[in-house]
């Protein structure tokens, strides 16, 4: 059904084209995105809360929207098989959650190393013992240095849009990297909300493997000896230098993705109430909770701004620096125990004692807006006591 495409510039269409209203869940939003993404092949493996979206994508296959689909044996095998399909020149999609992400972990740097623009949705949930299937995004902190692009959806609308945008960004010749689109499980996947969808007949252009910066493994694309003189295996200066420069190029490709993220996603961050003295900086569903916290604070006469971080990799260091240049406090609420986002923000800013790493909830707890508002007030109060701002 890729041939139905009537849109020359799907990127512009996605950003500014007409949309129609729909009242659907996040899982259904994933399905709506994949339906329009001209995907050749999707591979599924069950795990909560991801399964529902991959069931729906199975239905897409049954209806002919996707050319191939199957249930694989485990997440490592799923990620290996989509890797194989991408090496063979196909556009692929898969999704997983928490423990599935960790089961498949070895494959993610391989995707990046092979420079394959695989798009994977992560419906984040708890990992480790005691077991939890509840929302939590600690797995994102574990994926920060795998080489993949990482986008964090606030809601179902973002989840839908970011999947389509991820293909547009990841498949650019000067990028050609895997992209993970993350959403906090259940909160996004199982919540029904009003969304705006592109027209039913909207499609991305089909993937053209000839535009890839690396050859396709099909015995049609030169060079014949793709791995002649290997980048690994030989313990000498030339092989380690070649290996190192390959990895530098992966990092450079992620840097080059910035301009495409600005074009297709409208920026790496969104700022509300610019110029505020107090900012809440968050990603995922913590953004929605922060928006409510700001409403509470404003009701109490405290002015605060919001920074929604959409792109986690590449990380918007400069955008953040600029946004908080005149700010005294940056509060970072998170749905995980580790506080990876606060660490990233602290590492990006000067005067980083301005950053409060919290509040944090995990194990499936919700994050009430008052908890964030209290953290903001505590930070302001502590600064007053210490004679600061």
């Amino acid at each position, binding site marked *: 059904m890729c041939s139905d495409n009537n849109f020359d510039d799907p990127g512009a269409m996605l950003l500014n084209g007409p949309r129609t209203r729909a009242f659907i869940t996040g899982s259904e939003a994933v399905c709506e995105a994949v339906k329009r993404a001209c995907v050749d092949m999707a591979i599924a493996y069950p795990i909560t809360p991801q399964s529902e979206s991959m069931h729906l994508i199975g239905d897409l296959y049954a209806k002919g929207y996707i050319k191939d689909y199957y249930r694989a044996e485990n997440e490592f095998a799923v990620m290996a098989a989509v*890797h194989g399909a991408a090496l063979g020149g196909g556009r692929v999609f898969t999704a997983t959650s928490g423990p599935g992400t960790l089961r498949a972990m070895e*494959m993610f740097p391989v995707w990046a190393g092979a420079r394959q623009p695989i798009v994977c949705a992560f419906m984040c949930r708890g990992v480790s013992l005691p077991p939890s299937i509840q929302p939590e995004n600690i797995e994102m902190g574990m994926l920060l240095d795998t080489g993949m692009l990482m986008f964090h959806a606030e809601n179902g609308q973002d989840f839908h849009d970011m999947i389509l945008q991820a293909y547009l960004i990841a498949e650019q010749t000067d990028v050609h990297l895997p992209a993970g689109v993350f959403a906090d499980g259940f909160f996004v996947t199982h919540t029904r909300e009003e969304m705006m969808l592109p027209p039913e007949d909207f499609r991305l252009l089909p993937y053209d493997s000839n535009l890839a910066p690396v050859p396709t493994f099909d015995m*049609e694309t030169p060079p014949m*000896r793709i791995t002649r003189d290997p980048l690994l295996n030989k313990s000498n200066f030339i092989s380690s230098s070649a290996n190192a420069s390959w990895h530098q190029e992966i990092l450079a490709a992620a840097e080059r993705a910035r301009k495409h993220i600005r074009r297709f996603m409208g920026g790496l961050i969104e700022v509300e109430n610019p110029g505020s003295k107090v900012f809440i900086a968050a990603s995922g569903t913590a953004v929605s909770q922060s928006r409510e916290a700001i409403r509470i604070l404003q009701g109490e006469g405290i002015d605060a701004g919001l920074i929604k971080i959409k792109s986690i990799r590449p990380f918007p260091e400069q955008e953040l620096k600029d946004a908080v240049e005149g700010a005294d406090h940056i509060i970072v609420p998170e749905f995980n125990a580790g506080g990876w986002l606060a660490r990233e923000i602290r590492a990006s800013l000067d005067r980083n004692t301005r950053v409060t790493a919290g509040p944090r909830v995990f194990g499936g707890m919700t994050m009430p807006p008052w908890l964030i508002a209290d953290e903001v007030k505590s930070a302001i109060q502590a600064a007053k006591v210490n004679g600061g701002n």
Partner: protein
Amino acid sequence: MKTGMLKISPGFEDIMPEEYRELVDNGPYGKNYGIGDLGSFKELLEEHPLCAGCGLALSLRLTLASLPMPEETVIVGSTGCSALAFPQVALHNIHSLFGNQNAVATGVKRALKLRFPDKEKDVVVIAGDGATADIGLDMVMQSWLRRENITTIMLDNEAYANTGGQESGMSMPGTVLNMAPTGKKFPKLSLPEIAHTSGCDYVAAVSPAKPKQLAKAVRRAILVARKIGPTYVQIFSPCPTNYKLNPKETVSVIRQREKDGLYQTKEFISEEAQAFLNTVEEKK
């Protein structure tokens, strides 16, 4: 293979390596060569770095010379000794990770089917015994159970040779190896039988001691995988380095094992595969 894929751009002839020019002028692509033609054409494997007398290297040479259509063959390898040789193989070959080869091959085969619906593209997995029978057994068997149209070839040197000679599931019981300091405590895995009961339409256990039999098995396995279903070939390829054998005795070691009843050639062919092979081999 696209016409001209190998062709050297005008003006670059003199700077391309000699062995590449030989491949262009006298390679096996589209020629339907077999092992009987070895010595008369430029082989796909060039200057491999494997040890003297390596059984795996010999098996790999014979396997590559037996491919029915090298010009349309994509190899998926795995970590191990063979991964050291594959960068020197003039076919598109993929090295992803240790053990995931049959999952990767599944993806490659399915993508190539979608992209080239009117063309045969053979996807052949060539991996060691550790990759096939231990760390990757799950994905190997699952690809058989799913009836993927891929050929799985195990180069069985009965050890993890590349990491320094550790016991594998394919080592013989009682063998003292690294990580089996008092000898292996359980039998060699009967993977040909497992492949047979897992639905492989063609299964063979062969060795380079009988090159013609090896060549026939590889060819049959690839042809059956194309049209009928999954296939498996296990090639006994002793490791002189880790088993402390005299490198020149690799083949005689295989013969002795066979004589002692400790290695057997095997072949299982499903009815459907046999009917198909009859038509193919009659034509020939």
